[in-house]
């Protein structure tokens, strides 16, 4: 029975010079780290922006989110915002409540200072009527 001696570390001569790696590899490593940091900071910033938006103007956020999900055209959104402004309520309220929107349109028809396009109102009314 024979025993093998453990594999010893390779012998190196101490000369005082640093041991050098592959420069290209180190560069790409650095780029990768920076890219990850950038990505995370961007995502964090987006999250903070989103959160601030949700927190500070929850109503507007809800309006935009609902309008988007309901597929409301840009010009219709502005009509709804104008109606809400005239009525003194939040725009999202008109999106959520059909009766509020109907009342707002009726009130706007009788308000000469509304400066709203009649076609837009008719279109909204038509869409209500078909419902």
């Amino acid at each position: 029975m024979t025993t093998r001696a453990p594999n010893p570390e390779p012998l190196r001569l101490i000369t005082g010079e640093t041991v050098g790696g592959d420069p290209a590899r180190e560069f790409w490593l650095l780029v990768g780290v920076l890219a990850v940091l950038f990505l995370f900071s961007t995502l964090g910033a987006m999250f903070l922006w989103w959160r601030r938006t949700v927190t500070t103007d929850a109503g507007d956020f809800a309006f935009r989110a609902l309008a988007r999900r309901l597929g409301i055209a840009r010009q219709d959104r502005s009509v709804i915002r104008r109606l809400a402004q005239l009525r003194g309520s939040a725009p999202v309220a008109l999106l959520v409540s059909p009766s509020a929107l109907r009342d707002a349109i009726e009130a706007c028809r009788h308000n000469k200072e509304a400066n709203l396009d009649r076609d837009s109102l008719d279109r909204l009314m038509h869409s209500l009527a078909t419902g």
Partner: protein
Amino acid sequence: MRQKSAVMMPESLEHRVALIRSLPIRPRRAAIDTALAAASDPEEIERLAIELLELSVRPGVKTKAGPWARRGAYRRQLDADIALSLLCSHWGSLSPAARLHTLGVANGRWTGVIRDLVQHEHTNARLALCGMALASGEPALYEPVGELLEDEEASIHRAAGVTLLSLVALELELDPATLAPDLGPIDQQCLIPDAEVQPRQALLSVLRSAITRYGEHQQRSIALACLLLIAHDSHAHALASNRVDHAATQALRGVLRWSRAPITRVCALRLLGHDALSDAAVNRLSRAHDLADHDLTLRQGHLTLNPTRHAHLGKIEVRARSTTLAPDADGTERLRITLPKECPLPDGSWLSALSPQARRQIPRWVAAFDTDELATRALLDPLLGDDDELTRLMASRGANARTTTDFCFDACEPIARGAMTRFSFHAAAQDPTTPTHRRQMDTLSKLVRSPHASVRRMAREDLTRLDPWASDSSQTSLIARRRMADEPEAFLVDLRHVLMSGSALTRIRAIGIARRLGITDQIESLLLSLVTQSHGPNVDERVVASSVSALGSLCTPNARQTVRMVLRHPDPRARANAVEAMSKQERLAGLTDEDNSLRSTLTELRGDSHQRVRANAVHALMALPEPKGGAALYTPSASSALIAMLRDERAPHRVSGLWVAERSAVTHGSALVSHVQSLAEMDPDRGVRNRAHGLIHRIEVRQRLQSTKLTVTADNSRASAGQP
């Protein structure tokens, strides 16, 4: 894009709610909150309220959860509290069902809701606090409502005052109609709170604070609320200062004096004893504005019996005016009595509209106020004919004494009994010759036939008390005996008056009383005249019979002669009594009938056709002493007469014979007893048989008693003689 937009609008509310649910919590809450504020359709409001209610439910926190999980749970609880506050701020537009659910969710979480609502920028949100306090009755909400009394918005501090007043009304279970016009209808409570603090204590605390700040908010409803509590709760007296110049006291006095709410008049009645409020209370009580004002206060008539209140009410004068109307067809003048405007008591025109409970109390109020004769008539006379029995009863108590007799005949027993009691109280024994006495006697003689047992009994007692000749009772004899002892002259005058002019029954009773008192000698002449005038048309035979009996105790020649004269009277009762009286006179005079005149008269009468005369004659014969001729002459004659009676074919004569046999010294084994035994066994009449049986039994008992007595006497005599 336009086409796409047009497709969007028909989407249902449910679809939009589903879209909202996908939003983060804050936008979702904001969307529902603003939509609730803007929506006008009740169904939409209901649906959105449910959605917000769902957000208001607090999630639980696991005790073993980690710190991050706990923090998240606490954040969700905070979001739920905000949602609850938002939901509560829409209280005014919520349906009753949604309100009930809201109160259910909010129970125990009021601190956050109150903090958010008290300083909410929107008026409706602050008003919601008042609505919730009223609907829930939650004591935790009273304090913030009290704070709203100093709100800048007029509608808010007015609502806060009305809310507290409504809470007091609910706490005291008062009808809101009695607080009109100061308070409208109150929303029904939705939830009975499981409060740690007693609602009344919380109300007292808030109102104590509110009334001290009266100068700042000047809410009349707060003063009225305090007044209600002071009047109905003895613990609330601290709400009113005894200093008249205090602002709060001034407010209370002002409300008490000038409020037209009917309940304030009741408060005035209750607060008559309060030092600082009594004069305002008197002022309020001296005016009544409408039917409700009258009705509510009149119902509390029992409170007027309190001496302090009674003294204060006596300051209020009620004066009526009379106007002479045109005379009737028969020339009778009529008076119209009118009460002044806003009179504290209602006149006849209000009566039909008043409740029975109010009408019943009017007599108490009449007695409490300083009411003149005319006003009393105007107020009470219409009540005397009221359909309600208790009203008549109360009115009859306060009515004029002249109408008392009428009420003795009322169909309602309590009324008749009450009137009878008053009648008895006022009726006094008077000279029988006076018209008053005659009226009393007439009334009483009718009342003894009253359908009510209690009235009949009282009438009989009164008759006895007022007229000793009116009945045969032992009480009558006692009264007569006392009168004879106290005032013999007056009593004899009365007695003679009755014998001369009384009815037949009264005369008979008077004769009976005279016999019992042993004063027949005082009225001998009257008795003689009654007997001698016995053939007149107006003389009753019963009076003659009674008079003859009374004469039996007199041995004067006139009496004896008169009695003998009556022996030939056509009335058998008079003849029978005359036989008795004659026998008695002979005994009293100690006459021995030496000339056998009495015996011959009695012997003649033993064959009378009437059994009573015959029995008396036989009985008297048997009681006579032995005649001069010896026993042989006496005994067969009387005994044979008695045996002849017992053998008579007429049953009444046989019965009378038994009566005589019982009173004679009949002994067992004698010939008479054998006749009685044969009657007991064989008489065809059942009544005779029964009487005969009874007589035999009594004879046996009597003989046993006699033999026992004889034995005892013999033993005693032997014992006294020393024999064994």
